């Protein structure tokens, strides 16, 4: 709905309509929810609203992607890549930052990550060039200390499987061992909804593909 239509329909002051507009860009937020959030913020103390605004800005300015693994990072390299205690010859490939967080919570993996930022989705037109696949291959080619195993930890969905098969095919010429998580992830097949015990056993039971 265009801004002037909302204004006419809602009778809100212009400054509020602007906020409603911005909030409606958030996933799953429609006009009604956006207006409710705007009213809520209007009634909060000034310091609280400033803190929220500053937190938003700070996140946007400080958080980027790790130059090596594309995980969320403050600065050029993420905390995992920067940690000397992590094994550097094993890389776990995940679809998104939430999957990485689930694996870190499970404390079952002590290597490095690579975040693809999506999965192959032929029906949505998401192809290999839309993911960080070329970056992974470059990373494996250019590592000074060779990687002995790549664990493909994409979700147990059609899209996750397609991505895993594609990666396994792309890794073959590099001579790197590729493994896939064991089956047994829950309902949606999403890592981010799996509990730590499930993730630990899926990692432990990984097979070569």
């Amino acid at each position, binding site marked *: 709905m265009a801004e002037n239509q909302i204004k006419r329909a809602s009778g809100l002051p212009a400054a509020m309509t602007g906020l409603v507009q911005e909030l409606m860009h958030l996933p799953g937020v429609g006009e009604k929810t956006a207006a409710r959030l705007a009213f809520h913020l209007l009634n909060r103390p000034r310091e609280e609203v400033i803190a929220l605004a500053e937190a938003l800005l700070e996140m946007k300015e400080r958080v980027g992607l790790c130059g090596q693994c594309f995980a969320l990072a403050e600065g050029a390299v993420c905390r995992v890549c920067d940690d000397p205690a992590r094994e550097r010859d094993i890389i776990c490939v995940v679809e998104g930052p939430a999957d990485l967080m689930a694996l870190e919570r499970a404390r079952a993996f002590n290597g490095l990550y690579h975040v693809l930022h999506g999965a192959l989705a032929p029906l949505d*037109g998401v192809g*290999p060039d839309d993911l960080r696949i070329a970056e992974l291959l470059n990373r494996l080619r250019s590592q000074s200390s060779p990687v002995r195993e790549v664990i493909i930890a994409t979700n147990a969905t059609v899209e996750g499987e397609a991505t895993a*098969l*594609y990666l396994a095919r792309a890794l073959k010429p590099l001579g790197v061992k590729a493994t896939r998580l064991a089956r047994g992830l829950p309902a949606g097949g999403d890592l981010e909804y799996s509990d730590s015990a499930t993730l630990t056993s899926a990692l432990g039971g990984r097979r070569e593909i």
Partner: protein
Amino acid sequence: MAAEEHSPAIVLRTRDYLESDRIVTLITRDFGRLSGIARGAKVSRRRFERRLEPFSHVMLRFRRRPHGELMFIVRAEAEGLESFLLEHDLARIAMGSYALELCEALTPEADDASDVYTLLVEALRTLERAGAGAALRQAFEMHLLAACGLALDFARCRLCGAPAALTAHPLAFVTERGGIACARCRPAAGDAAVLLPGSDAAALAALSCAQLAQAPSLAAAGRAGAHALSRFIAASAGRRLRSVEFLERVAGQTAP
């Protein structure tokens, strides 16, 4: 509240919505193509016994909602419906995705689509068994077009009716006529034509009559025949399908 309805259905497409919901488009056997919202689909194994994702074959239980809103998906059960195991092969996933997208693109919403449902079941079953060959793709394309009222004819000239095998060559596929023109009729047939070797016309004619399950054992048409089908499909769907690029990339099939 509207009464609960049910039908066997195949999931064509899904989209995550909010935390744990999913918006799902399906081809049903009894009610055509439908879209609905499945609350908690990402976490509930109780109501969604079979996962709602592309290729899932489910007994769909749903309620309609007023004013053309998305229907409400109550449950999706296995009920002994066959499932299609394509996940171990990238080419099968790619071809299967294309089949799903083609169904979505060519079937009008909430129209009778029992033929399309039956065809899709047969196509996915054959794909699982025989793999992603060009003959199966071409046969499915023509069978689906026919089920959607867009039957193609490669057996005879659309203008003079002469059997293709007996007419002067080269034949031409004329998109707007959904068929071929012989060399003699071609000047009158319009100019958006793809020249077809006689062998391609014969292969397509045979594939369009055969059972889908038999298609993998028949010869596929070559580049020109595949191109003619793609042209006609793009014109009928009004757009180039998103899954085509992926299919051609992973299956190594020739792009039109």
